[in-house]
C-alpha cells in the first residue's frame, strides 16, 4: 500500500472521527459509510462494504448519550478495511475485526482524554466567560474542535499502524482453519452485539413483536435468496 493511499485513509479517518461528536454529525462516522469509502479509496469496495456491515452491527451496542463512554467505530472501521484489504476473503474479516475493535477501544479512551482537556481549558478562563467575552468563547470552541480533529487523526494513525503490523506478522501465519474461525468469531460477535443492543432498546413490550416480525421477514428473504 502506497504512502499516498495511507495519507488519504488518514484524512478520511480524521473526518470520520470529527463527525462522530464535533462537526457536523452527518453520520459519515457510521461504519456503514466509513468502511465503503475507505474501501473505495483502496480500490476495494467489496472489502469496505463487508467491514462496514460488520462494524455497523457492533455499533448497535452504542447509544451516544451525554457523558456515557463508548467505543469509536468510525476510524476503527477505516483501520479494519486497511487491514483486510491486503488479506482478502475470510482472513481479512477476522484480522480486520481484531484491528478495528482495538482501535475502537483506543478511540473511546481518547475521547475521554480530549473532553478532560477541554474541561481544563474551560475552567482556566471561567471568569472571562462569565464576563461575556465573545472572542474567548469562540476561540475556546474552535480550539476544542481542532483538539478533537487532532485526536481523530492520532487514533486513525494508530489504527493504520496497527493494521500494518498485523498485515506484516499475522497475514500469512495463520492456518486455514484458524483463518475461518477468526472470521466466524468476528461475525458471531457482531451479530450477538447487534441483537443484544437492539433488544435492550426494544424491551419486552409491543416492540418485541415488531422485532420478531422483522427477524422472520429477514430470515424468509435469506431463504428465498
Amino acid at each position: 500500500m502506497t504512502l499516498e493511499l495511507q495519507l488519504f485513509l488518514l484524512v478520511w479517518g480524521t473526518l470520520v472521527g470529527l463527525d462522530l461528536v464535533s462537526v457536523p454529525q452527518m453520520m459519515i462516522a457510521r461504519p456503514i459509510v466509513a468502511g465503503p469509502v475507505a474501501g473505495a479509496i483502496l480500490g476495494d469496495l467489496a472489502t469496505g462494504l463487508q467491514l462496514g456491515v460488520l462494524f455497523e452491527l457492533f455499533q448497535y451496542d452504542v447509544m451516544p448519550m451525554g457523558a456515557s463512554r463508548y467505543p469509536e467505530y468510525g476510524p476503527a472501521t477505516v483501520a479494519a478495511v486497511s487491514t483486510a484489504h491486503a488479506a482478502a476473503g475470510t482472513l481479512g474479516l477476522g484480522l480486520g475485526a481484531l484491528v478495528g475493535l482495538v482501535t475502537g477501544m483506543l478511540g473511546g479512551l481518547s475521547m475521554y482524554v480530549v473532553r478532560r482537556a477541554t474541561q481544563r481549558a474551560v475552567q482556566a478562563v471561567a471568569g472571562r466567560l462569565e464576563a461575556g467575552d465573545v472572542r474567548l468563547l469562540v476561540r475556546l470552541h474552535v480550539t476544542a474542535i481542532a483538539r478533537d480533529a487532532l485526536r481523530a487523526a492520532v487514533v486513525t494513525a494508530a489504527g493504520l499502524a496497527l493494521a500494518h503490523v498485523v498485515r506484516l506478522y499475522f497475514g500469512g501465519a495463520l492456518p486455514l482453519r484458524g483463518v475461518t474461525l477468526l472470521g466466524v468469531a468476528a461475525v458471531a460477535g457482531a451479530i450477538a452485539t447487534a441483537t443484544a443492543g437492539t433488544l435492550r432498546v426494544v424491551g419486552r413490550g409491543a416492540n418485541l413483536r415488531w422485532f420478531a416480525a422483522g427477524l422472520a421477514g429477514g430470515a424468509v428473504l435469506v431463504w428465498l435468496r
Partner: protein
Amino acid sequence: MTRTRRPPLGRSLLRLFTVQGSWNYERLQGIGVGVAEEPLLRDLRAAGNGAVYRAAVARGAHFFNAHPYLCGLAVGAAARAEHEGATPDQIERLRSALCGPLGSLGDRLVWAGWLPVTSGLALIGVALGLGMDAVLGFLVVYNVGHVALRWWALRAGWTHGVRVAVALHQPFLQRAAAWSGPAMALVIGAALPLSAAYLAGPFPAWARGVLLGAAAVGGAILLWWRGRLTGLRYGLALLAVAALAGWIWR
C-alpha cells in the same frame, strides 16, 4: 424589549452543526450552545446594550445538555427570551427545564429511531446487493431528516420563546416518537439475518453452524451481563478464543 427585524437564524443553524465541538465534563454542551446563540443576540449590542449583550452571551454558555439536533430549540427560545426582556432567572430556568425533555425526545426520535431505521435499511440494501447505492441512500435520507429537525427546532425556539413547551407538543413529534420504536425494531430485526447471511457467505457449512451457536450464546450473555460486558469486549474475547482454537486445531 428589543425586537430584531430578521434574526440571523441561518448563521445560528450553521454554528449548531458544531454544537458538541467543545463538549466537556464541566458544562457539557454549554460552550457550543453559547457560540450558536451569539448571532441571535447581536441585536442587543446594536441597540447599545453592551452589558446586556455580554451577560446574555455568558448565560448562553452555561451548563447545557440535550440531544444535539434539538439544541436549537433551547438556543432560539433563550435568545428570544433575552430580546423580550425576560429576567436572568427565568432564562436559566427555561434552559434547565428544556434539558431533560429535549434529551429524551431526541434520543427516542433519532438515536433509537431515525438513525437505526435508516442505517438498518442501508444494511439490508448492502446485503441485497445494492452496494454503494444503499450507503449513499442512507446518507441522503438520514440527513434530510437530520437537517430538517435542526432547522425546525431553531425556528420553533425562536418563534415561541419562553412558551417553547408548546412546540414540544406538536402532533407530528408525538406521532414520530410513537412510530420510531416499532419501525426500529422491525428494520433491525430484518437486517440481522440478512447481514449475517451476507457476511457468512464465504464460510463452509460447519463454520456457519459454529457462527449461529456463538452468536446465540453471545447475545444471551450480553443481555444477561448487561452493563458489565460490552459488545466490544465480547468480540475481542471471541477473537482471542478463535485464534487459540485455530492455533491448536491445525
